[in-house]
């Protein structure tokens, strides 16, 4: 255990001497996919709750397909599947994009987490109290203003506990990235394992790192909930 830590601590945390590796890459994968997924999921969630079938239908199909198949298979399709197509090979721009394992991984991760996040946000938009929406309409707010001032601020807050769950699941899901040659924490653990044959220790270090990041995320979201969900907390008895 000590020898692995001695040889690999730098690679586990940030660099193998040539590239960024380990925790830095895992956090980068998480931040980019969660960030892009979040931005995409809000318009998609609004479309998902639309009463018009031709708007909500395609979004439903998208989330259904991406939530019904494993992320690993989606990554395989992006990384080895799409790249094997003639069309992609012929197009220089597509060729350059799909040749990089990192790009394929980020694409698959973003699409995957966006599907889950869309469903979470759509569920919480649907659960908005009808009185609030009716009141907004009675004030003469346009649809855009209703969403911007009333529905989204309240729906996103209420979605926070479910969203934090999704972020942590996404952290755990980033572990498949090494199959696309992305040097995340697990890739380093596998390297350490094949060099030393100390499986329990190599993967144990990776497990501890993931555990620490998970706990940090949980603590972060607890702070966020205390800040943005304060109005839903049980009332404290007034101090004398």
């Amino acid at each position, binding site marked *: 255990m000590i020898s692995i830590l001695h040889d690999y601590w730098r690679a586990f945390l940030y660099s193998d001497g040539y590239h960024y590796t380990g925790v830095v890459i895992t956090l980068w994968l998480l931040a980019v996919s969660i960030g892009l997924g979040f931005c995409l999921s809000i318009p998609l969630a609004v479309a998902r709750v639309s009463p018009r079938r031709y708007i909500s239908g395609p979004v439903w199909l998208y989330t259904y397909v991406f939530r019904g*198949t*494993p992320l*690993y298979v989606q990554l395989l399709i992006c990384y*080895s*599947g799409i790249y094997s197509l003639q069309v992609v090979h012929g197009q220089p721009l597509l060729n350059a994009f799909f040749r990089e394992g990192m790009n394929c991984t980020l694409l698959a991760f973003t699409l995957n987490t966006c599907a889950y996040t869309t469903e979470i946000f759509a569920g919480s938009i649907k659960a908005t109290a009808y009185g609030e929406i009716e009141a907004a309409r009675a004030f003469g707010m346009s649809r855009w203003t209703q969403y911007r001032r009333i529905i989204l601020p309240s729906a996103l807050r209420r979605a926070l506990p479910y969203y934090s769950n999704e972020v942590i699941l996404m952290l755990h899901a980033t572990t*498949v990235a090494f199959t696309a040659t992305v040097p995340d924490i697990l890739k380093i*653990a596998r390297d350490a394992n094949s060099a030393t044959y100390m*499986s329990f220790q190599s993967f144990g270090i*990776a497990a501890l790192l993931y555990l620490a990041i998970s706990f940090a995320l949980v603590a972060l979201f607890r702070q966020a909930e205390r800040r943005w969900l304060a109005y839903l907390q049980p009332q404290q008895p007034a101090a004398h």
Partner: protein
Amino acid sequence: MDLQGYGPVLWAGTWQTIQLALLSLLVSFVLGLLGAGAKLSRNRTLSWIATLYTTLIRGVPDLVLMLMLFYGMQIGLNDLTDSLNLDDINIDPFVAGVLTIGFIYGAYFTETFRGAFLSVPRGQIEASTAFGMSPAQIFRRILFPQMMRFALPGIGNNWQVLVKATALVSIIGLADVVKAAEDAGKGTLRLFLFTMIAAGIYLAITTLSNLVLLWLERRYSTGVRQAEL
């Protein structure tokens, strides 16, 4: 569709995936019941162990645990047989897969069942004790059927996550549907087609299990009054 002779391989892989998922479900279901029992028990040590189990397992990615248990178990076993001067015993990857997935998802089922057991009103348990039922009878007649009603949405969720987690066993070398699709894709140089087929098979499994879950939910909520909306 032209599968270029890889149809049987894909079918065998699909069957392997289904078997793996169902057997792991069984393991994790039993572990979940035991874990929930331990977590709710008055015995401090038991509930502490169960809490440690759920916290650690749910904080670490399933793939990391899978690799750790899969390689770690084999090396541990080799050390054991070496020290006893026995021949090496190779762990069957399928059995290892079932045990590791079952062990991991047992932690998720523990939380589901714990919440569900707590949702059964206390008065009913007291009433059945007053009727002179034994603890086993209380569990079978009163607690379990009602607990299932509360647990079903959670069980359904866990099951869908578990099915998708089985895709990871191809990384530890099991011949599941993903492995079959990859082999077929590499053999025919049509990776896109075959990975899409694998995705389609998973989509079919999740769709089918959605239908079964809907039916189960209706069955276990017999006698629950619902207000018309």
